[in-house]
């Protein structure tokens, strides 16, 4: 009997909730049965798992007709990861065969053969574990690395937030205020220990994030969302929207302090999560409904999307052109840009490129951290 992995369990619960949101009649009994089939190892075979869940989760024809598409959408990435992990394991085993074993003073040492050593040397860029994870594409984080990756993301985002804080503090310091410094020094026996600065008038930073949460951006949206939550504390005005087929204004949900609660609230309220992409229509909606309020020469607009438009490209082009004209800077962050051999040749991207002030990648932790400077210059 197979033990059910914790991450798999969570994924299965998420899938149950995903189905429930789509009007499937699922209670604890169905979840228990799904766990039972996972425990019996049926999940190792994709088709068997799919048809088993289908028999358990569907209760009428309407469910039956929709299930396969929902299953594919939700589980494809998982099974691809499993396949990659298996291929990696096979490669690893192959590599292990290419080692010389030496027994020295009763201890076994495995020394890679020269050829393998050379190969390894080529990969030393990713030798450091943290560096490797920093460079890993969000969509390619393996199941085994997930926990470590989360920890690293947490740590790096925290460090980034501290850097932001320090920079903002120092940026807000003006010239030394002599009168104030002397007055504070009186309480310390006339010693001028702390220098007081003339307070510089705080410049209001205004940023608008528009995040694509369509199916093609699924794996990236989560990390980009967390990244934005970190930034939220350091901008006096940060507006946040998500879109796929429809636009949702997320800012009111960011008022809570607990990040987990915010993520939950967003998950609950964004109905078009993981669906198709209509970037042009969504940006047009942003312009017509929120444009007058959130677009000015003080605003920087950041669009996070892969640019895989399924709607009308002319509408997209026109919307981007209008936004760029109305705001100070327009930045497009595209996770696909980080892929090896990526060329901005998709119809959506080709049409909007001339109207962008910056076009950057946002596919791994490293690329997100590099955006710091861009955002600090806002």
């Amino acid at each position, binding site marked *: 009997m197979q033990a059910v992995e914790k991450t798999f369990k969570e994924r299965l619960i998420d899938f149950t909730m995903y189905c429930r949101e789509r009007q499937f009649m699922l*209670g604890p009994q169905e979840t228990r049965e799904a766990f039972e089939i996972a425990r019996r190892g049926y999940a190792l075979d994709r088709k*068997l798992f799919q048809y088993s869940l*289908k*028999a358990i989760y569907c*209760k009428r024809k309407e*469910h039956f007709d929709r299930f396969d598409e929902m299953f594919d959408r939700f589980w494809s990435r998982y099974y691809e990861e499993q396949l990659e992990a298996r291929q990696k394991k096979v490669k690893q085993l192959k590599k292990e065969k290419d080692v010389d074993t030496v027994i020295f003073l009763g201890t076994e040492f495995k020394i890679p053969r020269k050829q393998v050593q050379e190969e390894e040397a080529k990969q030393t860029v990713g030798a450091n574990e943290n560096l490797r994870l920093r460079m890993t594409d969000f969509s390619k984080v393996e199941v085994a690395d997930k926990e470590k990756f989360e920890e690293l993301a947490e740590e790096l985002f925290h460090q980034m937030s501290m850097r932001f804080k320090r920079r903002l503090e120092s940026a807000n310091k003006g010239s030394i205020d002599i009168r104030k410094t002397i007055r504070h020094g009186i309480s310390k026996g006339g010693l001028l220990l702390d220098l007081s600065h003339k307070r510089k008038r705080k410049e209001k930073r205004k940023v608008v994030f528009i995040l694509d949460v369509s199916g093609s951006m699924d794996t990236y949206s989560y990390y980009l969302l967390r990244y934005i939550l970190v930034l939220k504390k350091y901008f006096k005005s940060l507006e946040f929207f998500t879109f796929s087929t429809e636009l949702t204004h997320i800012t009111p949900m960011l008022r809570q302090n607990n990040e987990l609660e915010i993520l939950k609230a967003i998950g609950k309220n964004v109905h078009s999560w993981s669906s198709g992409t209509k970037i042009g229509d969504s940006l047009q909606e942003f312009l017509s409904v929120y444009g007058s309020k959130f677009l000015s020469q003080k605003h920087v607009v950041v669009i996070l999307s892969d640019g895989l438009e399924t709607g009308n490209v002319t509408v997209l082009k026109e919307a981007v052109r209008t936004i760029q004209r109305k705001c100070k800077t327009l930045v497009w962050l595209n996770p696909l840009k980080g892929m090896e051999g990526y060329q901005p040749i998709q119809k959506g991207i080709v049409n909007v490129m001339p109207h962008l002030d910056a076009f950057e990648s946002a596919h791994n932790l490293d690329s997100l951290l590099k955006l710091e400077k861009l955002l600090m210059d806002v």
Partner: protein
Amino acid sequence: MNKEIEDITKDFYRLDYILNEALATSVFLLKNLGKPLLLEGNPGVGKTVLANTLAQHLNTHLIRLQCYEGLDVSTTIYEWNYQKQLLHIKLFEQEQDKKTLGKEIFGMDYVLQRPLLQSISAEKPVVLLIDEIDRADEEFEAYLLELLSDFQISIPELGTIQARSKPLVILTSNRTRELSDALRRRCLYQWVEFPTKAGEIDIIAKKLPGIEEELATQVVTFIHNLRKSSLHKPPGIAESLDWAKTLLLMNQKNITDEIVKTTIGCVLKHKDDVEFVRNKTVQEFLYPVE
């Protein structure tokens, strides 16, 4: 494919039932999880035959309960054997006191077991087919809930009777009425589609070994195209088989307009549907199915 599912598919094929992978998985789960299986689909897609084949596959009995409006406990679960009870009273009224007599005549020996009770009283697990559940009243669905979830039946005079062996339950429905959510939630679900063209040719070839491939292909192409038309009652697999058998008996090599006019009654069972086909030419139904 999982080894056990593969074995089920092969054995069903041996028994002349062609399972697709999804349906085979449902049968596999029915066997392994022991949860009832609700089969829905158009009439004639092979829902009832599936239960028959399952019983053969497991080498066990099939207990069938055909549902209809007005079905009640006495015809489905149990009934007291009144004649036997009266006889017992007559025989022993002098010898026994009333209390003991009362106890004795309300024992299991005086119960006439109906299909549902029979299925849970069997020594060895049986296949219980509750056929066309949509024809029964909603009240009967409520009776079934206890059996389907806990495999037990409550008889007021005797208490709760637990299953000696859990039957493999298959329910079928033609969707003439919407079943309750409570019933659906107690079952695995499978929508049974008409087989693919290749699948149906295979079925005909298996059931009628003497048929030529050309004729079997024409019959199936004709029937598949008929199903696409808006008929009162689209033909099922049984109708395909009947028609193929008729054509075989008549030594026909091809389907012609003449033959359609004389034999279409094997396929269509509604006057308007028959008229619809008679007003068309054979070629209109023999273009290849996509």
